[in-house]
């Protein structure tokens, strides 16, 4: 049966530039002396370090545990000694520093003994599988890095009809998933089976773009060798088919409304690389400590390399060989959605799928010329795969009118860059959208901060008032006490006075009596 495919609106055809890197098998790299492992290599809260400086660690040992629900732990990619826990530049568009654990390799690459290989994942319940995957630090390897165990969780009322593995890999130059599917198809299928078990999914589909026939063939032969029921579907080569919502639309004709998750429409999408990582986590008991990365562009040996996390871009490029004089930019991620690195001293992490080295001969995908005025041609709206109106979003973002931009569903933008690519005026549209999005987030954060400050200030006012009132009450009580004391004293005084008066009266009477008795005899005489 041939599956009917559907078409999402928009998208652009790009020349794929994948040949240079996809023709070579995945190569190993020499282990560097120093590995820098950022505590945040995923979406969510950064992990918190559980090792201290000077401690010896073994390969695969957890060195930072997840902090909060949406978080992922970090494991040592080799054995050695923790030499530093401090801030280092990380691969992030800001070029800012973030906390990292630095491991100095001892060269033995010795595994820790926490590995518990399991042949059949059905020994575990879905909950146990999720817990293992969480513990193994598996995150989405397609580029976003969302902790995978969360996407393997089904609510009690939900049912997963289709589990889709995303092997589209639509961005030019990148071929790491392609090579992985060709060489490790069996791992991917086994990982998919684990995922199916965890999600209790009814059907599994792997979507592969038409420009990767070898990958599709490898997957098919692995499926027949393992005798499992998985459908491999070749989808048209179009950018951004590898987007989650776009692939769902193509394969199932389901559209995922804004602010809803695919699981609400009974679909779950995972990347093929994540499936291989899940296989390693469950069946081999190995945590996520390495991945395949594509090195493309102006390098001597373009291709795919299996890297331990924490290797720096400089160390890797040194092994691959670049001509430093002619290098223009080094882009982390693909040419459409990636960002330029401003230093090569950044570690490569779980979400690093590609390093693209450009020189003046590299065919530019996006124009770097000066932006001209918008001519309102509407090409951007034609290619937008989310049916947004990039032109309206641009006007409002440019004017910093963020409320209006949100009215045009700014937050549904996946920043695929199709609008940028087709804009005849070379306007950096996505840059405006990113600016608007992060500005809105910051404003929200400021608002929260202001509310907290207000609350604290009001409480302080209340406390000062209360303290004043208490002081007043205390004073009053004291005054009353003093008054009461005074009342007692008055009584005494009165009593004394009365007594004295009585004594005086008595005395007077006595004197009167005496004088009377004195005068009597006188009278008598």
């Amino acid at each position: 049966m041939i599956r009917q495919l559907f078409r999402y609106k928009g998208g652009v055809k790009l020349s794929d530039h994948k040949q240079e890197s996809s023709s070579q098998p995945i190569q190993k790299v020499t282990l560097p002396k120093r590995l820098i492992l950022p505590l945040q290599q995923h979406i969510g809260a950064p992990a918190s370090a559980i090792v201290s400086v000077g401690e010896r660690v073994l390969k695969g040992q957890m060195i930072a545990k997840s902090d909060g629900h949406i978080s992922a732990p970090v494991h040592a990619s080799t054995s050695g000694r923790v030499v530093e826990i401090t801030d280092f530049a990380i691969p992030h568009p800001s070029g800012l520093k973030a906390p990292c654990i630095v491991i100095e390799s001892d060269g033995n690459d010795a595994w820790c003994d926490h590995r518990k290989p399991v042949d059949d994942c059905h020994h575990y319940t879905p909950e146990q599988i999720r817990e293992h995957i969480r513990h193994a630090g598996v995150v989405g390897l397609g580029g976003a890095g969302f902790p995978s165990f969360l996407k393997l969780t089904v609510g009690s009322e939900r049912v997963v009809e289709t589990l889709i593995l995303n092997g589209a890999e639509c961005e030019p130059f990148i071929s790491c998933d392609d090579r992985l599917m060709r060489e490790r198809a069996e791992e991917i299928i086994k990982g998919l089976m684990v995922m199916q078990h965890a999600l209790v999914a009814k059907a599994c589909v792997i979507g592969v773009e038409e420009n990767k026939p070898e990958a599709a063939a490898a997957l098919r032969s692995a499926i027949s060798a393992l005798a499992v029921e998985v459908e491999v579907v070749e989808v048209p080569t179009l950018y951004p088919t590898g987007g989650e919502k776009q692939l769902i639309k193509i394969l199932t004709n389901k559209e995922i409304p804004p602010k809803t998750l695919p699981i609400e429409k009974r679909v779950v999408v995972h990347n093929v690389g994540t499936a291989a990582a899940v296989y390693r986590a469950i069946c081999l008991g190995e945590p996520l400590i390495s991945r395949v990365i594509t090195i493309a562009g102006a390098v001597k040996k373009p291709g795919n390399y299996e890297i331990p996390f924490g290797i720096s871009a400089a160390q890797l490029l040194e092994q691959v060989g670049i001509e430093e004089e002619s290098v223009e930019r080094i882009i982390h991620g693909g040419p459409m959605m990636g960002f330029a690195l401003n230093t090569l001293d950044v570690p490569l992490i779980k979400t690093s799928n590609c390093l693209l080295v450009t020189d003046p001969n590299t065919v530019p995908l996006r124009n770097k010329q000066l932006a001209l005025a918008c001519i309102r041609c509407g090409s951007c709206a034609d290619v937008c795969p989310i049916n947004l109106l990039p032109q309206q979003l641009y006007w409002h973002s440019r004017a910093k009118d963020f409320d209006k931009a949100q009215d045009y569903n700014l937050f549904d933008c996946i920043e695929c860059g199709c609008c940028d690519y087709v804009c005849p005026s070379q306007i950096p549209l996505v840059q405006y959208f990113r600016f608007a999005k992060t500005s809105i987030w910051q404003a929200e954060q400021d608002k929260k901060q202001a509310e907290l400050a207000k609350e604290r200030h009001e409480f302080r006012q209340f406390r000062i008032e209360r303290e004043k009132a208490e002081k007043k009450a205390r004073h009053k009580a004291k005054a009353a006490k003093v008054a009461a004391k005074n009342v007692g004293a008055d009584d005494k005084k009165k009593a004394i006075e009365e007594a004295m008066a009585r004594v005086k009266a008595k005395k007077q009477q006595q004197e009167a009596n005496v004088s009377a008795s004195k005068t009597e005899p006188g009278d008598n005489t």
Partner: protein
Amino acid sequence: MLSAIIVLTLLATVFGLILGFAAIRFKVEGDPIVDQIDSLLPQTQCGQCTYPGCRPYAQAIANAEANINQCPPGGETTMLALADLLGVDPLPLGAEHQAEPEATVAFIIEDTCIGCTLCIQACPVDAILGAAKQMHTVIESECTGCELCIPPCPVDCIIMQPVKQETRNWKWPYPVQTLELRK
């Protein structure tokens, strides 16, 4: 004639009763516009607007005693939001008020601090921790950067530091085009 007077009197009584009831039943406590203005202000409680705190300033704006451009920490954004809310024309910010002020937090140089508690008493949001003759410290996440703790300090051990830029609070820059002059 008489019936008309009776009908009108009756009507007036009925409506009067309805109005009287509504006045009691739907009585608005306080001035809602003050709350609305207050919610737009940054709540630093710094007093740079010349009023003792954000709420008094909001009250003053509502009473048309103060202008909408007196809040330096809020900058242009707050001024525009206030103009929008009140339906008045935006006013230019004073020379000393920046369009986008830099966020700062107070920091106590703990070696110099003598533990006099004067800053604790000055802090409008209780963001300074300490006791008499004990070292004080600022709770960074709660400090609004109002600078009110700086003047009372007898040993000048409080400094203002810019809020640490992290990937968490980083903002993509506004796209700027650099123009090249061709000769």
